[in-house]
């Protein structure tokens, strides 16, 4: 690349930012296109989780008693703890994006590592919750055990519990994987205030997964804690 010899505007190949792709006019346009693409993907994710939550709503209206009984079996302290952990990870993620925007490269790495640590904490808690469900026989299938006439419907509740939290946990695992790549890029000082798109888009994905949990916590753990059905 020629240094200091900025001649004609049409000779734009010589001095543009190394992250600028040739089919974009400038970094602003590229950033806008990347953000839009990520949002389009998140729209499909909204519809994906929306379908599962729709199924949840239909069955909840059909079997309110089973939903109250099933929800009682979930540990509200672990669910609440995980809610705080995940919202906290959204804060550290937002601060990671801000550090990348302001060019604070070491802070970016630090906030990304905090986000990953909180994400892994969530998954560890989720693992112990799942293990408890296997031990008490609350996993749908031939070994499902639940006393009382509502047992088949409580099994539907637990089917949706495992489908919703399972797919959410899968998104968390993918998120931690993405963070690993982005953190290593940040560690190698690949980002600057002019170009930090992977941090921004990784952040969008991370916040979306947080939003899903914001819905799952009250829908699964807090169905009928005031016992107005039971």
């Amino acid at each position, binding site marked *: 690349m020629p240094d200091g010899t900025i001649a004609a505007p049409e000779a734009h190949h010589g001095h543009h930012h190394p992250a600028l792709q040739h089919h974009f006019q400038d970094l602003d346009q590229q950033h*806008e296109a990347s953000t839009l693409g990520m949002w389009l993907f998140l*729209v499909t994710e*909204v519809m994906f989780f929306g379908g599962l939550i729709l199924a949840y709503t239909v069955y909840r209206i059909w079997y309110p008693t089973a939903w109250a009984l099933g929800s009682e079996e979930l540990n509200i302290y672990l669910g609440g703890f995980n809610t705080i952990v995940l919202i906290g990870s959204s*804060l550290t993620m937002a*601060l990671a994006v801000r550090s990348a925007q302001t060019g604070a490269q070491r802070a970016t790495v630090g906030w990304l590592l905090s986000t990953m640590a909180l994400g892994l904490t969530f998954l560890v808690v989720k693992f112990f919750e799942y293990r408890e469900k296997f031990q008490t026989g609350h996993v749908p299938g031939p070994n499902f055990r639940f006393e009382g006439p509502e047992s088949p419907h409580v099994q539907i509740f637990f089917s949706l519990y495992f489908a919703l939290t399972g797919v959410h946990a899968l998104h968390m695992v993918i998120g931690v994987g993405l963070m690993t790549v982005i953190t290593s890029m940040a560690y190698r000082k690949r980002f600057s205030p002019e170009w930090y798109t992977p941090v921004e888009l990784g952040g969008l994905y991370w916040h979306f997964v947080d939003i899903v949990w914001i819905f799952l916590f009250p829908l699964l753990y*807090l169905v009928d804690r005031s016992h107005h059905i039971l």
Partner: protein
Amino acid sequence: MPGHISPKSTYVTIFGALMVCTILTVIAAFINLGDLNFPVALTIAVFKATLVVLFFMHVMYGSKLTKLIVGTAFFFLGILLTLTMSDYLSRGWSTSPRGSTAAGAITSLTGPSTAGARPLEETPRNNPPK
């Protein structure tokens, strides 16, 4: 330089608001509101999600095109939920003066109802025109 840079205080404030809403949703779940418990929990969750989308995900400072794309997500989610629930929630409603007797006749044709399939078989239908 692309992107709006929010001050740190904005993010900490939003985090605080999300924590307060989390406590509120737990408290609301332990109060007997009857059928309102579900809508209240959903309303708080929608409010929290809106805060995350606007401030953590920078849609507040995004372009109009970004806002349009985000809007389509909730528009199509609304269609999915509204049209499906308008079907499932109205299945017990009579659709003709003879609706209740017609439903009884259909039930006898479809055999004894089982507990698991009960909500589906409550569907009332009109008698075919003679």
